[in-house]
Structures are given as C-alpha cells and as structure tokens.
C-alpha cells in the first residue's frame, strides 16, 4: 500500500540516538575492601559470609568463613573482634555484631555436622608443626588443604594450646574446642602429644621434614622480684590456669590478689572467684585507660565481683598481707612511685605480668634470628631460608588467638611456596571502602542485638559459659544490619535511578552492567549506591 508522506516512515525508536557519546566520565562497578575484612587478623571475608547469612544460607556463609579460619565457634567466643571496631556502621548507630554471628555459624556447623573441605591432592611434602595452639592448628588446616602431610606435635597431653590451657572454660566451653579441633584432625593429621621438641634441627632431620612451622606459644609466666616470706603462696597465672584446665586447681585461699592488667589477669581473677575466692583483687600499676584487657572482659569481671586497685604496685608479700605502693602517671604515661603505701589482706598472689617464649629448641638453628625473646620472621612467616617458619606468640605480634590463626594461614602459604618452589604473590587487596563512600540514607535504622549474659549469680560459682549465643532470628537480624561496604549486594538502586535506563540488570547474583551506548555519565548511580560499589572514571578519548 502506498502511503502519503509523513505517515510513510516506520516508527523510529529513539534508541537510534546513542546518547552515550555525550559522556565525559563513565561509571564503573568496583569492589572495595570492607573495613571489617581489612581489620580481621585472620583475613576473613566477613562481608562475604554475612552476605550469605543475610539470606539464611548459613552453610554457604560458614563455608566462606572456613575458607580462611577453621575455628569459627572458638573465634565467635574469644576473638577480640577488631572487625567490629572498624565497622562503618559505628557511624550510623552501632557496629554489626559480627562476632556473635560468627559464633552462631560456628555452633550451627557443629550441630549440623558440616565438615571442612577435603584435603588437597597429596604433594608428598612433609611438614612439621610444633605447637597445637591456634597458630599450629590453623597452619595444619591450610597445609592439609594444600595437599601437604603434617605432623603436629605438642608438649601437652591435649591439642589446643593456650585455647585450652590459657582461656577458661566459662569463655570457651571444652566441647566446642574439642569439636572444632577434631574436625581438623579428621582431615588426616599425624599427631604426637606429650612430646617436647628439644632441638628443632634434629627433629626435622630425623623426620625428614621439608619445612617446619614453629608455633610454640608463650608458655612461661614472667616473674617479678617481690620480697615474700617463706610461707607466702605465690604462683604465676599461666601455671594456675593450666592446672585449672587439667582439673587440678591449686588452693589459693579466700583472698586472692592478682598482679597485672591484661586479659590473663582478668581470666585469673574470674577463675579464682569461681573456685571460691571471696575477694579477687587485681593490682595494676597504671589506670583503666592503659590496661591491656578488653573492655568486655573488664565489665564482665566487675559484674562478677572482681575488684581492681589502679595505680598500685606490690612491694612486699608476707603470707597474709600485701604492701602496696601508690603510683602516679608521669607526662609520658609511665607510672612513677609516690612513696604512699597501703596494705591489703591476701592469702595468695598470682602474677599475671606477661609471658615469655621458651625458644631453647632453636639453640642449634643458627640462621634463625631471635630478638627480645621473639623469633624474627618475613611477611611469609619465614624465619630461616632453610625452611623454618614461625608464628603465634613466638613472634613479635599481638598475642591473641585470632592473630595466631592468621599467622598459621600465612605460614601455610609461605611453606607451600617454599616446598613447591613457587613464588606466588599475595592477592592485590582492593582499596578500602570508607564511610564517606556510602549513602547511608538507604539503610534502615536498626539497633544491635546483644547476646544474653548468664545471670551474674550463676556464673560466680561454676564454669558454665558466660555469654550466650544468638537465636537464629537474632543472628539473621544482625547479619542484615551489614551495610556491605564497597561490595554490591544487588539492591537494584543503580538499575532504578538511571534516567536513561542505561543499567542492565543481569539477575541471579550476576549483578549489573552499564549500557555505555546510552549512559550519559550523570553519576546519579554513584551518588545513590548505598554501599559505594560504583565510581566515576574519566572517559578515554
């Protein structure tokens, strides 16, 4: 049919007009490093596993978690969670309760019997791991996944190191500890307990090991010189906690004084209260701001009737009375004596003034450098080019279980490179996701869910766990508070707010793509992205 002009043309779609040519900057999707991941000493992909937990896919979340850390049930109890201090949500309301969700996942995995990934194909390499604490267990796990054979030796009669012999059961129930260790053992590990390594070179030679990982911990309680009468009961905290763990607690009497201001001092005081001490008094030479113990531990201890004498040192202990000298902090924050004294009744004194590492097993390892009682290591945790690696409390670092787990992982990869003769470089880390890159308008207001605490009265007399777990509802709620900093969580905002329909939704966890034929580069998607996962870059000519 012949049509008159003006209706003879096909309907022309405006899509012929490629408005993308107007653009001088283009939006691109990016993944940034969430501050929680950045702060985690164990290198966990926290934002990643929270993302799975948000949709109730707890097994996927747990699997992502144990990619990096095989001990979530333990970490969910004893970790000092630097992730939460770094959490961007602090600037909105309160940090996401990451530690509580981690514990929920860890406990659920034990309940459901989820197993760790299978060991990698056998490489034929043999690795000696000395010390079965968090560093040694973590290294063992990662080495097994890489296909190396592991002999794990420990001087104690049970696996766990300081997690068993340093952390009291009311903070870390032995059932959880045992179960998470058993899961690693089930990957096939040659275990030797009650075995003290006197000479690491000899041990390595005898067993024909390709590499060694030293994770011997800091087992020696430091002593301070305090004049004490013959009848005085003085013990160091490491020995005390070890004996309690062995169910052979020493008798301390009713009035126990603990000297020190770290977590070990508080663990000791709280344990003493549970063993029947009426008075558990911590004596610390600095003030509260400078104490080493975590705030949570401090608050819980006070709630259990532990008292603290700040700015005091112990001058003398004569068996039932301690002489204290009052201190003051000088301009640099160091305590100085004041010459004022007071007395304190005490049946026993426990020293929690720090721990040293017994490194005598390195006496014949001449290419290992020991400085100030710690082993010097490279980034790969290598202590000697001959293949000795070290981690945990034996090297200069913060002495926590989480840091040790991170050391174990790094050492495992360092050892893998060493024994396989490869030199894979560590993954390039994404740029940090800062609070300023977020658009927090889009996050609903939601306060944090606190874990229930055992009634104080109950926890003074037994070793039942003090901090309870989250219910599933609460864990889900808490996971959903995550703002997913710097990583797309498919909220559809970019897809919705584009005035030019230039965002293509791929669906099914595939996120989005820009249609640069039509994107004019206005930047609304960047501005309105809640989590800062888009950025503008100048257009190339």
């Amino acid at each position, binding site marked *: 049919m012949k049509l008159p002009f003006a209706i003879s*043309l096909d*309907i*022309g*779609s*405006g*899509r*012929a*007009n*490629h*408005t993308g040519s*107007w653009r001088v900057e283009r939006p691109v999707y990016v993944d940034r490093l969430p501050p929680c991941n950045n702060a985690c000493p164990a290198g966990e992909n926290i934002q990643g596993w929270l993302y799975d937990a*948000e*949709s109730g896919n707890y097994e996927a979340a747990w699997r992502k978690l144990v990619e990096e850390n095989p001990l979530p049930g333990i970490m969910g109890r004893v970790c000092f969670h630097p992730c939460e201090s770094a959490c961007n949500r602090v600037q909105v309301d309160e940090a996401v309760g990451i530690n509580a969700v981690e514990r929920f996942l860890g406990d659920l995995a034990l309940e459901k019997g989820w197993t760790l990934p299978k060991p990698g194909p056998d490489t034929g390499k043999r690795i000696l791991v000395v010390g079965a604490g968090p560093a040694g267990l973590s290294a063992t796990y990662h080495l097994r996944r890489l296909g190396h054979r592991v002999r794990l030796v420990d001087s104690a009669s049970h696996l766990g190191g300081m997690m068993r012999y340093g952390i009291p059961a009311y903070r870390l129930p032995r059932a959880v500890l045992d179960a998470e260790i058993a899961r690693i053992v089930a990957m096939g590990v040659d275990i030797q307990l009650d075995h003290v390594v006197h000479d690491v070179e000899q041990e390595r030679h005898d067993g024909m090991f390709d590499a060694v990982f030293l994770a011997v911990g800091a087992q020696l309680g430091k002593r301070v010189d305090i004049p004490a009468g013959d009848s005085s009961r003085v013990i160091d905290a490491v020995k005390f906690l070890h004996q309690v763990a062995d169910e052979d607690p020493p008798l301390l009497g009713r009035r126990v004084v603990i000297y020190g201001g770290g977590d070990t001092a508080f663990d000791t005081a709280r344990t003493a209260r549970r063993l029947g001490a009426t008075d558990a008094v911590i004596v610390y030479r600095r003030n509260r701001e400078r104490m080493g113990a975590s705030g949570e531990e401090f608050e819980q201890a006070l709630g259990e009737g532990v008292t603290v004498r700040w700015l005091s040192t112990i001058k003398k202990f004569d068996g039932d009375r301690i002489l204290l000298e009052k201190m003051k902090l000088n301009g640099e924050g160091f305590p100085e004596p004041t010459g004022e004294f007071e007395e304190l009744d005490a049946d026993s004194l426990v020293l929690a003034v720090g721990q040293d590492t017994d490194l005598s097993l390195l006496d014949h390892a001449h290419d290992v450098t020991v400085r100030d009682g710690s082993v010097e290591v490279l980034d790969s945790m290598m202590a000697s080019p001959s293949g000795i690696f070290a981690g945990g409390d034996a090297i200069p670092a913060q002495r926590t279980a989480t840091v040790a787990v991170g050391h174990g992982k790094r050492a495992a990869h360092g050892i893998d490179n060493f024994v396989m003769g490869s030199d894979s470089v560590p993954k390039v880390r994404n740029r940090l996701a800062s609070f300023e890159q977020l658009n927090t*308008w*889009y*996050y*609903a207001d*939601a306060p944090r*869910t606190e874990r*229930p605490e055992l009634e104080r009265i109950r926890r003074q007399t037994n070793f039942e766990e003090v901090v*309870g777990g989250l*219910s599933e*509802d*609460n864990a*889900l*709620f808490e996971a*959903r*508070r*995550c*703002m*997913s900093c710097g990583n797309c*969580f*498919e*909220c*559809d*905002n970019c*897809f*919705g*707010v*584009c*005035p*030019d*329909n*230039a965002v293509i*939704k791929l*669906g099914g966890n595939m996120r989005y793509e820009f*249609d640069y*034929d*039509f994107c*004019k*580069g*206005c*930047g*609304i998607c*960047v*501005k*309105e992205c*809640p989590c800062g996962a888009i950025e503008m870059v100048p257009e190339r000519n």
Partner: protein
Amino acid sequence: MTSQDVHFYQVGSFAVGNRLLEQEERTVQAQVDRTNSIDSGHRACQGCGEALGARYALDAAMRATNGQIVAVNATGCLEVFSTPYPETSWRIPWLHSLFGNAPAVATGVAAALRAKGIEDVRVVAQAGDGGTVDIGFGCLSGMFERNDDVLFICYDNEGYMNTGVQRSAATPPAARTATTKAVGAEPGNTFGQGKDLPRIAMAHNIPYVATATVADLHDLERKVERAMEFHGARYLHVLVPCPLGWGSASNETIHIARLAKESGLFPVFEAEDGVVRSVSPIRRRVPVEEYLKLQRRFAHLFGPHPRLDVIARIQSMADANIERYGLVSPESLEESS
C-alpha cells in the same frame, strides 16, 4: 532472650529493590521486565529528574492497569526531548497536541473510550509545571470540575527549562531564572506569588490528590497505584529537580529532591476528597541551607555577603509546611529542641 522482628530488610524500605524481598513486594523499577515507558536514547540532559520521574510514574501506572494506558502529553521538556520527529522514546500509546490543552485532550480521550464502551483502558495526562500551573491551568481546572476520568501528573521542575529557564508560577521565591535576575534588593523570584497547585486541586474536591518526589520511589509508585484505584479526576504532583535550570550537579538530582522533602520545603502527602489523609514524615531534618546551597539558582544567597534574611524567610516557609502538614512528629520535635 529478647527477640527481634525477622522481617527486617537491610535496605528494603528505601532502596529500589532487595534480593531478600519476595518478587511481588519489590518495586516496579526493580523488575527486569518493567515497561521502560520512556526508553533509552531520549535527549534529556544528564541527570534529568523529569525523565526519571516520568518513567517511575508511567511504569507504575502500566503495572496498575495491566499495561492498558494512553498517555497525553503537554508541550514541554518531556515532549521535546522524547519525540524529535520522526523518532519517539515512548513505548506506550502517547499523544501530544498543544502546550495548554493536555487536560482537555485527555478528557476527550476518556470520553471517546467511554463512548466506545472500553472500560479497561485508562488515561494519564502529563505536563511540566508550566503546562500545568500556567498555560494549561484553565483546561486543568475544568477537567477537575467535571471530574473526568484522568490521572493528571505534573512533573514540577519549577520553571520553563526547555525554553531557557524562565520563571513559572511554580518557581520558588528568591530563585534566579532568566526572567527573575539575581539583582537588586530582592534578587531572584518574588516572595508571595505563585500557585500551590496541589492545594488548588484539593479545593476542587476531586477524589485523589498527592505529592511525591523522585527521591522516594516506593512512595511514588504506591501513590500511582492508589490513584488508579479511583475513577474521576486525580492529580499527582511530582518534584523533579532540573540540573540545568537549578544549576545543580547532574549526580545530585535525587539527593536534592530528598533534601527538598527533608527540609520541609516540599511537603509530601496525599489527600482524598479534599482532605489530607497521610503525610511522609521527615526522617532526617535539615535546615533549608542544605537544600539551597547545592543549587546555583540560589547562589546569590550565599558567598561573601550571604542574604541571611532571605534564607530565614525561606526557612519560615519550610517551618510553615511542617506545621501545616505535621511533617515532624511532636516527640521528635521535643528531642531536637
């Protein structure tokens, strides 16, 4: 143990979509198969609020009517940038006649459909603020008075932007336009003039009147769907920031619309039969400066010699809105004082 409501979604209440929501609970704009009533390739400026608002509103109307709408468009930016002959960016039945007669044309379309016995096809008319509050006002008032079965949507960018940013009766006081220069003792547009079309529409006692912004998609879509539940004349007034005319950065369009609402300058509410039924309360209240300083059309109020007196007058307009519509709950007023 205390328990929290599990049905809490990370961003479910504010963002466009959320993977954790059921499909039917997500917005129209979150759907891969949304209509895209106005397609890519239109010639609107970077960051155009009107192009965005039109897609939001018409896509929602398409869902509400199972795809059975006819749109009538007045002359204006929206018409010019979407239909340069012989192209069109519209993916819905769409008519354009003149600048001033869109309400009358829509009335005619509705009458024709009724005459043909077609009941499931609904009519939406749309115009900018010029075509609504000035040039099309007589036709619109007649359409309201006759209670014709049309949803009329005004995309308010507060001026004649397409022809070079002249003042309209929707231009706010003190704003600089091509016809209200920022000179003299009272720079920019005068105070005390202009028309508040939503309230004028309410005074016609039509079934449904609502305001919305491009900053709250959930609210906008809900209002379009609600409007389509009525027959008779309905009016929806959508604030759509204009980067060109307002002198704002192209990426600020939604942010500025949000500040207009959060400052109280643009009250977001809905009314049925001439009575206000609900308001969108202010969530994070801001002083009007936060809104004004992002726009060059108000630049003469800031700088080395700021016009604090003018800013205070604008603030008092916002405060009057907050009082009139109850945009801040009494409890939160106490908290902030």
